[in-house]
């Protein structure tokens, strides 16, 4: 073991992510124009939307991991689901914060009771609930299986959040980018796409590291097993009594 969770691949990925971040900053803050309606505030878009979409993706990875885990009992997918939900929670937190800052500028308030915002907040709390289950003090396998069932439900919650603007009449922007004929300026669109790519890279980079940390934690637990078995068996040798002989 190298003593770290990085490898050549992740170092490349990390470098790419950092370079991408720099490029994103450049495009978002300098190269892309102001918006006619929104003014400078529109620059929030380049964080807000990519983090949201990457967070949603992360939750679907968790859903997929949960399904595969329940089906095949694969530890690999269990850890993937766990790590992905953690990073998704952080990213969704970034969405919330950037959205609130943006809202403060363009709506005059940090928050309003709009369906999109509410469902986003619910989704966030739900992920916190999922992570709370992940932290319950109980046997690892049992906890994983419980968490997998809860993780399944991230799917519908995310879908509701995504379609909130379509199902309810909302103040929040409806789907603008995902439409085939985007109505936004070319360089803005490019910057947005760059943001998506950069946050996707960031997600992948963090996911791999988090995965490795969790994997190693499991291995450390398992490593202890042989020693624990030997120690347990030795209880039988010293007479099997609880009282140490004087």
């Amino acid at each position, binding site marked *: 073991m190298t003593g770290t969770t990085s490898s050549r691949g992740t170092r490349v990925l990390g470098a790419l992510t950092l370079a991408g971040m720099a490029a994103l900053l450049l495009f978002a803050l300098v190269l892309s124009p102001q918006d006619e309606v929104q003014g400078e505030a529109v620059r929030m878009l380049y964080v807000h939307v990519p983090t949201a979409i990457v967070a949603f993706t992360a939750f679907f990875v968790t859903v997929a991991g949960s399904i595969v885990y329940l089906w095949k009992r694969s530890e690999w997918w269990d850890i993937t689901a766990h790590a992905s939900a953690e990073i998704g929670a952080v990213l969704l937190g970034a969405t919330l914060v950037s959205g609130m800052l943006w809202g403060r500028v363009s709506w005059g308030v940090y928050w309003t009771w709009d369906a999109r915002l509410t469902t986003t907040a*619910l*989704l966030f*709390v739900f992920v*916190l609930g999922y992570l709370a289950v992940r932290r*319950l003090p109980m046997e690892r*396998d049992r906890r994983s*299986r*419980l968490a997998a069932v809860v993780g399944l439900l991230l799917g519908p*919650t995310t879908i509701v959040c995504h379609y909130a603007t379509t199902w309810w009449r909302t103040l929040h922007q409806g789907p603008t980018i995902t439409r085939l004929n985007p109505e936004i300026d070319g360089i803005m669109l490019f910057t947005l796409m760059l943001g998506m790519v950069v946050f996707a890279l960031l997600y992948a980079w963090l996911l791999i590291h988090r995965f490795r940390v969790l994997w190693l934690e499991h291995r450390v637990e398992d490593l202890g097993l042989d020693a624990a078995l030997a120690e347990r068996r030795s209880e039988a040798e010293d007479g099997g009594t609880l009282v140490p002989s004087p």
Partner: protein
Amino acid sequence: MFRDAALIAGKDLRLEARARVALNQVAPFALLVLVLFAFALDPDRGVLDQATPGLFWIAVLLSTLLAVQRGFSVEAADGVRDSLRLSALDPAGIFLGKVVAIGVQLLVLEALLLIGVVVLYDADPGGIALLVPTCLAATVGLAAAGSLYGVLSAGLRVKETILPLLLLPVLAPVLIAATQAFEAGFDDRMGEGWRWLGLLVVFAAAYIGLGLLVFDTLLEEA
């Protein structure tokens, strides 16, 4: 499966007949929530009229929480979960039985609350044709999701706190859809109401389906 469901539901309803928890405790609690929140939201500002459906469903939601806690604290006692695992009962049957038992209690409660709302808030229950199926569909959804999380948390030492945390966000769509359907019903905008009802039916079906699939795992692990 249905025989097992009947056995479980019968046992739960017998327990209720003996202990009268839903009747003597959950129902007054629901009324209490209604009154209390009406107070907190300051009646003289005319907020209440608009908020009636929301308050009704919040009261139902919190009562669901209590009904689920009660229904599964019974199954959490002193080795009962092991007994259930050792029995020949089909987990899907146990799930359906719990859903039925909780659902029946909730329906009675909703009937009481509806009377309460009409009297207390002077609400006008127009479109009965919409209200009744809304209640039915929402109840099935609540009971199904409640049973799912009920069994998940029943075996845990922190069940009092983790259940509300997990259950409420999942029930939120029901709260929203049912509230909207009720508003439509009270205002006689039936068309919109039916759309929300559709959502409730989908939700209920989804949770029943999910429950039949995963209850086994939950009973096993929790």
